[in-house]
């Protein structure tokens, strides 16, 4: 993704900071609003260069729509993950078969990779151990048969990626590019 202009970066940083201020103070008092706007302006002027690379392009309607659609999907995946955990913890025989598998991602941006790693950690039976370039190393609490019995490395990566990263990538690729 190409670098955005300074003005676009500045406006984007200001908008994000001001929304953050509104949420944290939770008040619509005029004094609070003016203070928040002034502080957001100062901080945006100081940090807009390191805060974002794409600037206002992040607020493209398609991206925002996908981000909003991602929230219920993610919450649902998280609830499923916790029912899975509850089953494994409460089951007397403790049904676990852990292992570290390798996945490959198609995401390019660092923010996208971070979000994918966080999403993987909070969803069923998986936790991200390390990210090295495009490779994700994931601790899996129950490695399924088709991954375990893969003939070679590339088939292993393909099967594991299909199970773990694919469902999130179709959202995150649009949101973060």
């Amino acid at each position, binding site marked *: 993704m190409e670098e955005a202009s300074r003005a676009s970066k500045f406006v984007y940083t200001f908008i994000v900071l001001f929304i953050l201020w509104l949420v944290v103070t939770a*008040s619509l008092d005029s004094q609070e609003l003016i203070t928040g706007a002034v502080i957001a302006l100062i901080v945006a002027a100081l940090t807009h260069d390191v805060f974002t690379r794409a600037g206002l392009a992040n607020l493209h309607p398609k991206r925002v729509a996908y981000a909003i659609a991602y929230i219920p999907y993610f919450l649902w995946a998280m609830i499923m993950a*916790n029912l899975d955990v509850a089953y494994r913890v409460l089951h007397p025989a403790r049904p676990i078969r*852990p*292992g570290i598998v390798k996945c490959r991602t198609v995401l390019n941006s660092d923010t996208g990779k971070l979000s994918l790693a966080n999403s993987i*950690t*909070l969803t069923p039976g998986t936790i991200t*151990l390390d990210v090295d370039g495009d490779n994700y190393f994931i601790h899996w609490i129950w*490695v399924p048969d088709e*991954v375990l019995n893969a003939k070679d490395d590339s088939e292993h990566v393909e099967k594991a990626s299909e199970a773990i990263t694919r469902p999130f990538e179709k959202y995150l690729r649009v949101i973060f590019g």
Partner: protein
Amino acid sequence: MNALAIIGEVLVFIGTFFYFLSALGLIRMPDVYNRMQTSTKSATLGSLGVIVGVGIWAIGKGYSPAWIVQTVAVAGFLLLTNPISAHALIRAAYKRGIPLWHGSVVDKYGEHLASKAQAEEAEGETSETSEGVSE
């Protein structure tokens, strides 16, 4: 008692129950990796339930709507930061050489690190020999 207060109470109860499950996972699982698996997830969803539940319950009790905004902010913050601490901890565990549980079936990360170290070693050797030739 109105509907919002009841929804909030149910959410708080589910949240505290998941807190209990996460602590139980901490006790029952055999090694540090599996403990992290069970406890991080349950504790995060538990916090989400308790904190958002408190916000809804407060609205039901007639407090100002600012409650729900603030509680959702805290819940969102926890949702963003908890997995990051989990990554940092599990990587620290692996880098310190804590072994996987004996029932573990596959370790691709170890293979990756070994092949990387081998490649670096080979590279170091070739650069050394080329230096020797130039001298």
